[in-house]
């Protein structure tokens, strides 16, 4: 029987290209190009590695986002993912992590059978880490977060979780959900052949009607979070003092006089 894997990804502005507006202090994303969220790239790679080792694996990548998120899905397909679904509807706009998780859970339910769901640990543009675990809760399945390695043995899914005090290996019975740490593997590069094939195959697009949720459950209406205020923290100015090589004594004296260093 086919092992069905779903990878949930998000398209984010490339964090290296996002600039902070010096006047309004808001993030200016318009200058940045859109990429797959870095941790999600690792999630895709984790899924592909299972496909490399196991027989009869089918991977579908899904995202909730605007129409231009298509490029992220095509990118995933060019790495070896079989199918892609873009869940896109004006009704989803303004969603916080709660309706986002609900929307993705409804999409996966609608897709039919699933065995493993992968997601990146968190996104670089909001860093909540809510959506993956949220989907597991909505679907009522087991989950493992903070993982760096996953494999299948005797019908069980094993995952290594990187915790503060060590690595914990957990065993789960599918269906289950796994969130993957950033940089936990090296994502493969798409080849020209695979890019061409993914362009030809294309993606599927689903709307609110396809996943059968009520409009008031999704988007801004379905979001319990209210942002009360936002402020920026002023950066502490560095003194910018320089010491030349051979001035180590002076450097140490300076640190001691400032109370940074105790002799």
């Amino acid at each position: 029987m086919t092992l069905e894997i779903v990878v949930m990804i998000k398209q984010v502005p490339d964090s290296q290209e996002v600039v902070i507006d010096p006047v309004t202090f808001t993030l200016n994303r318009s200058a940045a190009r859109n990429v797959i969220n870095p941790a999600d790239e690792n999630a895709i790679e984790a899924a592909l590695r299972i496909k490399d080792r196991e027989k009869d694996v089918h991977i579908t990548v899904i995202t909730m986002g605007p129409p231009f998120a298509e490029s992220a899905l095509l990118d995933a397909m060019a790495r070896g993912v079989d199918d892609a679904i873009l869940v896109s509807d004006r009704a989803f706009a303004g969603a916080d992590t709660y309706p986002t998780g609900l929307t993705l859970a409804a999409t996966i339910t609608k897709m039919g059978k699933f065995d493993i769901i992968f997601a990146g640990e968190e996104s670089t543009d909001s860093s909540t880490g809510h959506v993956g675990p949220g989907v597991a809760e909505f679907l009522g399945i087991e989950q493992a977060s903070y993982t760096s390695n996953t494999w299948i043995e005797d019908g069980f899914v094993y995952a290594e979780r990187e915790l503060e005090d060590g690595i914990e290996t957990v065993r789960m019975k599918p269906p289950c959900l796994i969130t993957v740490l950033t940089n936990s593997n090296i994502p493969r590069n798409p080849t020209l052949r695979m890019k061409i094939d993914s362009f030809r195959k294309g993606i599927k697009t689903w709307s609110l009607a396809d996943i059968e949720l009520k409009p008031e459950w999704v988007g801004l209406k379905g979001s319990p979070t209210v942002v009360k205020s936002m402020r920026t923290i002023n950066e502490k100015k560095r003194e910018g003092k320089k010491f030349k090589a051979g001035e180590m004594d002076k450097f140490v004296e300076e640190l001691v006089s400032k109370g940074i260093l105790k002799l």
Partner: protein
Amino acid sequence: MSEFDVIVVGAGPAGASAAIKLASAKANVLLVDRADPPGSKNVSGGVLWGDSLSQVAPDWEKGPVERYVEAKGVSFLTKDSRISIDFRSKKFGEYKSGYTVLRTKFDAWLAKKAKDSGAMVVSGVTIDKLSMKDGKAIGVEQAGETITADAVIIAEGANSRVAINSGIKKKPSDRHIALGIKEIIKLPEKTITERFGLSSAKMGFASEYVLGFLDGGVKAGGFLYTNKESVSIGAVISMGDLRNNNQTYSFNIIEQFKEHPFIAPLLEGGRVEEYSAHLVPEGGLAVNSIHGNGYMIAGDAAGFTFSNGLVLQGMNYAIVSGIVAADSFLQKKEKGIGAGANFSNYTDNLSKTFVLKDMKNFRGVDAVTWSNSIHQTIPAIAEEAMLNMFSESGEPKEHLAKILFKSLKERKESKKDLAMDLYRMMRRM
């Protein structure tokens, strides 16, 4: 049967123009660029001269252009002086000059145009080489896989990995390559219009400079172009000089240019927004033949750039060569002999355009533009002559010819070299 009619390698002005032309003629085209988004690794000084693009994109002047060049300068910079021609003309309405462009915007716009015309545009993949069979290109190779096409248009730019790996182009020598370095400096639109004395925010200034004052006598040409809300400033540096001079670093040269007493005020208050560097083809044709069995070479990859010290051009040559390459494929295809054809018609067709005519007529001009005479002797003599003419010392005035002759006599450079360079200048510039 091939998977594509044509694979175009490189989404710069040459490649994108070719792809638009081909896709508009219902050919099955793949346009591949190593950068993602396509063209984002491309760099140029930033003036697109002429109107060649209208052949494939009639609406381009309403597209991603910055300012129309109404003022064109050429200057010699010595340590303390600037000797300039600052040409401004209302007649630039009827005589086509050019537009300043920012390549990240411009190339993305062209690639989108190619996609909208029906080409498949793939970015973020670097092609390794041509795939050859029985002496014919049958497509391209990437990661060990072959993607087949009836023809390949190599428009990969100055850094010609595919052409070199396929053995159809030699690795360039120092004489055939220069280093271009460029910064984009952000300034308010109004400041630019006022500072450069432009008639409106739509109008721009473009100038070339001979940088005759650089540390260690390194030879470089400078350029400064105004965009809507930024200034593009940069230098094109002789690769040989850089290699022979261990004291000067390329990044220092653009700093010296920016700090020159008559450049610094133009940039005051600006913030560096972008820094880039790229190879610039020099010295004319970079390949023995621009066509072969199953392939054609267009744009910078073929060495289609023009520089006579007064003006730097490349994008217009790229566009025309890309379009002519596309046309030449369509010509063969119509006769049913597109696949792996010997595209000698490309060379023939391009010979009728300014691209190959200029290449032929201005062959060897680089010997003048990179000469000591242009970079040192002439600016020094001119500076002294101007100082003598435009000052009052209480002494009786002298004739210009006498002033020039006197300062020439005091220079230690070889008079014979100068005479040779002047002769070449008359002949080649």
